[in-house]
């Protein structure tokens, strides 16, 4: 009997092949059934017989191969390689995320350790937290006046909340015993916070960071669709728009829309796995 992980892996591969196979078969190009009318010829042949189809997996792979072979090309503002777009997005996410972490974790600490500050800041947090990140966009654009800085700000404002709340919760629920140990050893407040409370709350803080990075990635794609310029979100949205504006473009661009969505999902998965591994190492270490 094969081991459980191996059997699960085989099952995953089988499911993938079945899905791709079904997709492939369902999207074969239709054979032209009748002669095109004069009108259809004039308007470039788009019509019922040549409806836009979801590209098949084989077509996607072919296009993806072509894109990935040269991911960093730059032929102008509307035509950049996918690798370059990815780097732009990642850069913005990391910038906003680290600003958020730099603010959320210390403030979360203070909130967790001090009931006074917790009650004082709670109304602000409860009001600001549910505001949709994209709703911040117009305000950010108006005040900051720069589209890249605005998207970084939007990342910042949406990823700060999970980290803040989780840090506060983790710090507030450190076991009384550990605090008593620190008290009987006459450690000052600062040393207690750094050497006892912070390691004890670390798993919860890391959970908050994982949640935040996931949200950040979701938001950057949406934010870039709005403000554009560069980045994965812009890339996806741009290709979608190109589809509509110029339907004489070849299928290449339709494939691009799909494979970019796929790239975004894959990157998110990799990111999540990364943080999960840090999380696990943190628990054992």
């Amino acid at each position, binding site marked *: 009997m094969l081991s459980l992980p191996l059997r699960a892996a085989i099952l995953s591969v089988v499911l993938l092949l079945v899905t791709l196979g079904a997709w492939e078969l369902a999207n074969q190009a239709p054979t032209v059934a009748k002669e095109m009318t004069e009108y259809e010829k004039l308007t470039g042949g788009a019509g019922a017989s040549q409806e836009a189809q979801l590209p098949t997996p084989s077509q996607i792979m072919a296009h993806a191969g072509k894109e990935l072979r040269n991911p960093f090309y730059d032929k102008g503002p509307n035509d950049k390689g996918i690798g370059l777009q990815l780097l732009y997005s990642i850069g913005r996410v990391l910038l906003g995320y680290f600003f958020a972490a730099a603010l959320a974790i210390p403030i979360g600490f203070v909130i967790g350790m001090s009931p006074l500050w917790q009650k004082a800041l709670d109304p602000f947090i409860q009001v600001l937290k549910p505001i949709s990140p994209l709703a911040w966009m117009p305000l950010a654009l108006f005040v900051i006046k720069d589209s890249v800085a605005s998207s970084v700000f939007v990342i910042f404002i949406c990823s700060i909340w999970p980290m803040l709340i989780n840090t506060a919760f983790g710090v507030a629920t450190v076991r009384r*015993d*550990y605090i*008593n*140990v620190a*008290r*009987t*050893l*006459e*450690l000052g407040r600062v040393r207690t916070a750094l*050497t*006892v409370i912070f*390691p*004890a709350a*670390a798993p919860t803080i890391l959970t908050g960071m994982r949640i935040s990075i996931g949200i950040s990635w979701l938001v950057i794609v949406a934010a870039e669709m709005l403000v554009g310029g560069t980045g994965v979100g812009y890339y996806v949205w741009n290709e979608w728009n190109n589809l509509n504006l110029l339907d004489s473009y070849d299928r290449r661009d339709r494939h691009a829309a799909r494979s970019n969505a796929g790239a975004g999902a894959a990157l998110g998965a990799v990111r999540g796995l990364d943080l999960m591994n840090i999380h696990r190492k943190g628990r054992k*270490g």
Partner: protein
Amino acid sequence: MSDAFLKVENLSRRYPAPKGDEALTVFEQVNFTVQKGEFVCCIGHSGCGKSTILNILAGLDQASAGAVIMDGREVAGPSLDRGVIFQNHSLLPWKSALRNVTFAVAARWRGWSKQKVLEHSLRYLELVGLKGAEARKPAQLSGGMRQRVGIARAFAIQPKLLLMDEPFGALDALTRGTIQEELIQIWDKSGQTVFMITHDVDEAILLADKIVLMTNGPDARIAEIVEVTLPRPRDRTKIIHQPAYYAIRNHLVEFLVERSKTFRSQLPAGYDPKSPPLLRPGLDTTAVAEAVAAARIASRN
């Protein structure tokens, strides 16, 4: 006595009432003293406030009334002079056994070099029999080993007063016996003053010089103090053959079963909470003879 090392004077602990009812008094008018180098145990049923007294002695809790004076100074908060061994070991789980001890030692002697801290900690870990297990995290140690690390940590900082809150309560009987013996050996060498809470009568007789008996809570108080007159060094297996052992044990068990409940309604004549009576059942020849006779009959049947 005015030159006692630790004096507890008229200690009370009350919790405010939730809805205008009477305040809950856990214990009140607790008075006792501990001489330097003495080993004192406190025994009582659950709810009599033993752990609360210990927390107040450690400075982790505030008394509602009364004072604790150690070495001439009032106890106002936690201090490195009063080491605590908690009921659940309270080891920091992200640090190894060795690091847990060095953490305490470095907090005690800030100016020591890393090497000195390390050697000191290793010595105490060896004393409790954990040589070779220093690098393990608490999750990789058994319950007995974790408690040993707690003991090593408390002894390593060499506090003036050592407070132990039912340290062996979570261990099985076999491990408990072994660690009790180790504790006696360490304590013999260090000459520390110890105040320990336990609910195990045999443990108290084995370890203590004096046993403080508390009545049942709420409104608990000290009923009496029993002096354990068995000679030291005490051996766990040999102590039970000494004639005075069962006299003392019977006295304690009889108190816990019967008198801890009825004490308040049947106060003995001349009882003064400011100085509870000091009894020596081990020297009471009648009690000893009766106990010996009862044991002989029991062993014959």
